[in-house]
């Protein structure tokens, strides 16, 4: 297959195999016919200025010149994801004994996770390619994002999830009214089924046949971090790792900003965080392997429970190239991470955010991350979606009758 007069989509000019470099038109395909390698969007980025970006909308569409979308996305029906807060985390920094710490809080997205970003780019391309139904395989957050974006855009949605998902993520998908298919199996089983369904249905699966576009949406996390720091790069970023895609796209965003002259070239390290119960990328990193051995996930961090992460090898490459590291933490530490962030910064993260905070703390204790490095922790989702993780340890301090005397008596016991 060769590229024949395929029109550019914004600055995107082709799909290109990450493994062998074969180029394809910008249509709904994701695997190389030559080698099965994943396809990625290739760009010819023109001149993009800070002023141009700053004058754009307060959403991820301020970066549309750097994304594979037909210009004018802001005016089309969508959820207006992105441009979430970058929060200065001085209390947490003090508690951990580090110099300068930020939380990129993507729980502020329309459906409360960073998945609204990737769905936005996939949806734009699904619409461009004429799909009437959008679909996905999901561990929950993506399910919310696809169901909501489909509703806003007036498209049908079909969402596939493992049946053992947190109740919060089932409700927050089903409420948007699309078709929700719960499967007795883990995410890797769901993913496999969707790959087969995608081959026979004329649907736009955001993370299968629209995946090359979808994945680019994650770059906007990196762009925003750099812009919100005042057009400069941090020393370090700690990203959760599920498929490994987000971590690699944050790196891609930083390199594009350097290449475009939007930020000074500054060395940065990218760190990955996994839950020990599903840590194939951490295991490969810490044993010096290039090959990722799939695992059967067993962790409360279900949004990260991908046992066979397709972008894992690329995540390893990025972490090694930038002199970062990958760590993993137990479910108990995940809960501690959630509560530590909530207690110090008033941010209630879902389990993936707990994984990031706890892994950062662990890497600090092990001397694997520099406490003087200005560091950005990525919180990718909202704790309200994973209440069951903290329910058992988050109870009223006291339960009393409406009696002043009883309050005084009980309160004096807990506050000394």
């Amino acid at each position: 297959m060769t590229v024949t007069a395929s029109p550019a989509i914004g600055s995107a000019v082709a799909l290109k195999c990450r493994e062998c470099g074969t180029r394809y038109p910008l249509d709904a395909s994701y695997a190389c016919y030559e080698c099965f390698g994943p396809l990625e969007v290739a760009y010819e980025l023109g001149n993009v200025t800070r002023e141009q970006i700053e004058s754009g909308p307060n959403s991820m569409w301020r970066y549309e010149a750097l994304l594979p979308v037909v210009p004018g996305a802001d005016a089309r029906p969508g959820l207006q994801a992105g441009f979430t807060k970058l929060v200065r985390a001085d209390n947490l920094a003090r508690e951990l004994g580090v110099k300068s710490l930020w939380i990129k809080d993507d729980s502020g997205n329309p459906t409360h996770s960073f998945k609204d970003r990737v769905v936005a780019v996939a949806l734009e391309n699904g619409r461009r390619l004429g799909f009437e139904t959008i679909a996905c395989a999901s561990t929950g957050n993506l399910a919310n994002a696809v169901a909501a974006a489909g509703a806003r855009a007036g498209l049908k949605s079909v969402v596939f999830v493992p049946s053992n998902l947190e109740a919060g993520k089932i409700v927050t998908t089903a409420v948007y009214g699309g078709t929700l298919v719960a499967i007795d199996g883990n995410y890797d089983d769901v993913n496999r089924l969707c790959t087969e369904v995608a081959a026979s249905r004329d649907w736009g699966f955001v993370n299968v046949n629209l995946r090359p576009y979808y994945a680019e949406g994650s770059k906007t996390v990196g762009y925003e971090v750099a812009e919100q720091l005042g057009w400069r790069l941090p020393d370090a970023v700690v990203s959760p790792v599920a498929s490994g895609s987000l971590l690699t796209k944050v790196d891609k965003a930083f390199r594009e900003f350097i290449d475009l002259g939007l930020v000074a070239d500054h060395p940065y390290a990218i760190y990955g965080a996994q839950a020990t119960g599903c840590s194939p990328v951490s295991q490969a990193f810490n044993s010096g392997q290039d090959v990722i051995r799939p695992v059967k996930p067993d962790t409360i961090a279900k949004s990260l429970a991908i046992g066979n992460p397709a972008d894992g090898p690329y995540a390893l490459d990025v972490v090694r190239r930038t002199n970062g590291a990958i760590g993993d933490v137990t479910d108990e530490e995940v809960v501690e991470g959630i509560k530590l962030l909530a207690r110090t910064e008033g941010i209630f993260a879902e389990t993936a955010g707990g994984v990031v905070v706890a892994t950062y703390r662990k890497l600090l204790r092990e001397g694997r991350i520099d406490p003087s490095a200005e560091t950005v922790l990525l919180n990718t989702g909202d704790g309200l979606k994973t209440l069951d993780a903290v329910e058992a340890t988050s109870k009223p301090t006291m339960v009393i009758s409406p009696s002043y005397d009883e309050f005084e008596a009980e309160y004096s016991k807990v506050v000394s």
Partner: protein
Amino acid sequence: MSASVRIPTILRTYTGGAAEVTADGATLQDVLDSLDAQYAGIAARVLDDNGALRRFVNVYVNDDDVRFLEGLATPIADGASISIIPAVAGG
């Protein structure tokens, strides 16, 4: 041993468009050899230059990823169902 093999879209140019074909073999390696005898060149798309499964292809025998079984040495029972599927990630 005869097994049914589900062929992904990107390999159907080899099978004349067929989505499912049959092949023989006692192990997955044998089945791939049998496939290649019927559809010349197809095995080289699934295996790399060293004869190992390519990094971005997943093969399932009766719904189990062969990386959890014995890889190319995985035994194939008569009537087994094999799927060849490109790896994709998501979340």
